[in-house]
Structure formats: structure tokens, C-alpha cells
């Protein structure tokens, strides 16, 4: 069944969406979109180093994103400038360093566009297994730390006072982002990973009254975006990553319109009920 590249792409894409979207909710809640961007952009350097050292791009990306993400956490804690300035600098610096290092490696031919924007055709059998394995690990860990991580997101002090080890939760969470970046790179591309993390989450907000519901809805919307985007990509031969993001954006617009209409109707009913 995995012989068909369409099936491989769909399985991998859906696997990525199922973990990226619930994890992305935390990026939205913690206002960390730039953090996700910076981590993802560092992935290109991981590709280069992975090829250089012979461990392969995916392993290289995982190691580099983990290191960069942990350094960012440390750096943001001690930085004297505003966090978004630091991340704005590092995000583009990381991407540029990766591009420059790759340019020096004249002996390897790298499909740059594929890494930056995703390439469905490049998703091989082993990539599918990597995605399924990575996604399973991320989902299991996320489920295990879900409640304390939500508590730490709502209020660090309250969570600490009630025995949550906030620092450990935050480090584990950053590691999960690094795994998601490593496994989503081939599907949506380095430049667009953040959008898969935050657009479905933002679309789910209007229909949720608890964090859990928002996470599940975000995953559903993410799967729809991947299926729709990949379908369109195959039909019209458009790049995979951008097609998925366009589909996610369309779903976001629809959900925003529906949520606004629902809120308006509820408001109207409340007024009439008086």
C-alpha cells in the first residue's frame, strides 16, 4: 500500500497534522509563534550538518533543532532585549547560516526548494515510518504531560505552588517541538512549519471552551488541510507545503466566519431572551 507515493504522502501528512496541531495550540497560547519559526529555520543547518556527518538529514535536523530550541530558552531567560527582537534576529540568521553552509557544500546536490517548501514526491517509505514513529512518541509524551503543561501555561506560579515541575515541562515541550519540526520538514517545508502549528489551532479557538477540545479540533482541521492541500498539489502540480497552508488558511477563514456568526446568534438569543 505504501508503494503509492500518494498514499505515502497522505499517511505522512496526516501523521504530522495529528501531532503538530495539538502541539501548536501551546504555541498560540504561549505566544511562541516566532519561537517555532526560529526553531524550524534552524532545521536547514541541521540538514547540512546531517549530510556532512553522514547521520542523514532527519537526524541532523532533530539534533540541531533540539540544541537551538534549548539555547533559545536559555537565551530568552537572560536576554536584556525583548524576546521578539531576539527571535527575529535569530530566526533569519539561522535560516541564512543554513543556506550559506549548504552553498559551501558544492559536492552535494540538495533539493533546496523541497526542504524549504516541502516535497511530496520525496516522501519515501522510510520517511513514512519516521513520521509514524515520531508522531506516536510525541503524542504519547504530550498526553502524559498534558494537564501539568496546560496548568503551567495558564499560570506558572499557580502550577508551581501545586507541585508542577514547570521547568521540566517546558523543556520537554521544546523537545517535542523539535521532533515535530524534524518530521514535518519533508511534508510542509522548513519555511511553512509554523503555519501548520498555528493556523489550525487558531481556527479551532472559536469553537472551544476547553483546551482539550481546542487541541482535538485543531488536529481535525489540520488533517483536513493536509488532505485538501495534498489533493490540490497532485491535481494542479502545485508545491505541497504551500498548498497545505493555503487549504489551512481557507479553513481558518471559514471557521472565523462561522464562529463570528454563531457568537452573533448567541448574543441575539440572549438579547431576545431578556
Amino acid at each position, binding site marked *: 500500500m505504501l508503494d503509492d507515493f500518494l498514499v505515502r504522502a497522505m499517511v505522512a501528512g496526516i501523521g504530522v497534522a495529528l501531532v503538530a496541531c495539538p502541539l501548536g495550540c501551546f504555541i*498560540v*497560547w504561549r*505566544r511562541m509563534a516566532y519561537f517555532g519559526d526560529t526553531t524550524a529555520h534552524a532545521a536547514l543547518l541541521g540538514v547540512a550538518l546531517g549530510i556532512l556527518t553522514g547521520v542523514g538529514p532527519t537526524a541532523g535536523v532533530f539534533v540541531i533543532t533540539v540544541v537551538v530550541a534549548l539555547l533559545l530558552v536559555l537565551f530568552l531567560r537572560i536576554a536584556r532585549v525583548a524576546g521578539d527582537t531576539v527571535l527575529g534576529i535569530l530566526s533569519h540568521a539561522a535560516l541564512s547560516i543554513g543556506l550559506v553552509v549548504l552553498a559551501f557544500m558544492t559536492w552535494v546536490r540538495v533539493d533546496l526548494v523541497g526542504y524549504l517548501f516541502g516535497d511530496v514526491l520525496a516522501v519515501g517509505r522510510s520517511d513514512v515510518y519516521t513520521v509514524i514513529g515520531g508522531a506516536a512518541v510525541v503524542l504519547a509524551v504530550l498526553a502524559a504531560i498534558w*494537564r*501539568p503543561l*496546560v*496548568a503551567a*501555561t*495558564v*499560570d506558572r*506560579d*499557580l*502550577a*508551581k*505552588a*501545586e*507541585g*508542577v515541575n514547570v521547568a521540566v515541562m517546558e523543556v520537554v515541550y521544546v523537545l517535542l517541538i523539535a521532533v515535530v519540526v524534524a518530521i514535518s520538514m519533508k511534508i510542509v517545508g522548513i519555511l511553512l512549519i509554523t503555519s501548520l502549528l498555528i493556523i489550525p489551532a*487558531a481556527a479551532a*479557538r472559536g469553537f*472551544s*471552551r*476547553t*483546551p482539550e*477540545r*481546542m487541541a482535538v479540533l485543531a488536529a481535525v482541521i489540520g488533517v483536513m488541510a493536509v488532505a485538501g492541500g495534498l489533493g490540490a498539489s497532485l491535481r494542479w502540480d502545485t508545491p505541497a507545503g504551500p498548498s497545505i497552508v493555503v487549504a489551512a488558511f481557507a479553513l481558518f477563514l471559514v471557521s472565523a466566519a462561522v464562529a463570528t456568526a454563531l457568537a452573533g446568534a448567541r448574543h441575539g438569543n440572549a438579547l431576545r431572551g431578556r
Partner: protein
Amino acid sequence: MNETVLSRDPAVQPQSPKGAPLLGCRDLGVLRDGRWLIRGVDLDVRRGEIVSIVGPNGGGKTTLIKSLLGIMRPSAGQVTRAAGIRTGYVPQRLAVDRTMPLSVDRLMTLVRRASRAEIVAALAQTGSDHLVDRAVQELSGGEFQRVLIARALLNRPDVLVLDEPVQSVDFTGQVELYRLIASLRDRYDCGVLLVSHDLHVVMRETDRVLCLAGHVCCTGAPGDVSRSPEYTRLFGPTAAETLAIYQHAHDHAHGPAGEIVTGDAHNHFHHHGHED
């Protein structure tokens, strides 16, 4: 440290400690960025006792309770906790991001799970069970405080720690909240430690006041105001029953660098730069 209490009404004397010490600290100090936020603080909260912390902004009130609750790591001294006690923390209003969907019932089970019946029962203790399905972002200051208190009660605390519980509440609401806190002390037979936002006015049921300006400036019982006509006129008869005046008894002044200059017993507030 000076333990003298100046009370308007000689009938009101500092009450004797009520029960066993539950939560406290010995010679507690917190050093951050080369500066002592608090230093040499001794405190005990006993069962059935209400302790109010007053003091100027930056005096370390929040630092003290955060250290007691394990949120901040002390740099000197130690926190004392009776074995097996449960603490309930009521923070100031939480800043919950609008992107975070959080209903009141989910806020109640943020760290520990509880059944719907337990949640509603705890909310009923603070008269806020009708809010159970509301989004926390829609709550008023007073409603939010009641929900947060109910949240702390869910764990049946031995000590209830409240950080400026009436700060974002209007005056009538403040009186009601103080009455609620006092009734919870009786109902749960717990110790209560609360930070007061006002330097001179504390809740009437307070057994002991601790004035904190980096160190413990003075402690004592609040004076009774309900029988004083001028305060009754000032606060209104109902409010005077829930509020009390604390007369500071400082025996020292602070030098320019915050060092303690001992001198004759004063009764001045100005040394610490108190705002009012």
C-alpha cells in the same frame, strides 16, 4: 523586634496563638540580582488563625508568600511546614490569554482532577456555583476571586494563602469577600495567610498583622474600629464590622540604603516611604 501593639480600644489585646503551627519560616531571606528582597523573616501561621501581611509596594509581601509556597527558592533560612499539610493558593487575578479557551470548571481542575459534583460543591462554598460553565475571561474581578478561592478549597487546604484578594474588587465586594474568608476559616478550620493591599486597613477577623518592608517592621493585632464612631462614619456600619485599622509600631527608621537605624519608638509611617 517590637511586639508592642497600640490599640485604640484597650479591650482588644493580641490574641494568643490558636493552634499548632502549620506553615511558616525561620530567618527567611530571598536574594535576587544582588539585592535582598526579604531578609530575616520569621512567621508562623497556626490552625484557625488569620494572619495579614501589610507593607509598602516592593516590601516583599508577594516574595514572602511565594517562598512559603515553594514558588521561589529562598536564599537563606528555611520554610517550615507541618507534616502532611495541604496549602491552597489564591493568586491575584490570573492573566489568562484570550486565545486560551478556559471554562470555570476546567480552571477548577487545572492541576488535579475532580468530579463535576465536587467542583460545583466547592464553587457553592463561595457562592459562585452559577459560574461553573462560564469562560474565565468573562468573569468580573469579584467573581474571579471567588472562583479562585473555591479552586483552592477543592483540595481541602489546611492553610489558605491569598495574595491581595480584594484588590480588583469594589468596596462592597471587598466587605463581602472578607466576610467570606473569615467564614471559611471557621468552616474549614484552616489557617489563613493573606496579603492586604492597604497599609493600614486589614480584615477585621485578623488575629495578627505583620508589616513587611524587606524585613518584619512590626507585628501586632489590629485595633477594633467597629466601636469607634469616626470609623463607622468613614466606612459605614457594615464595613466597620469587616475591616480593622492596624497601627504600625515601628521602633526604627530606614537610612538611604535601606539599612535599619534604631532609635526611640516612633509611630511614623513615613520612614518606609509609605504611600498614604
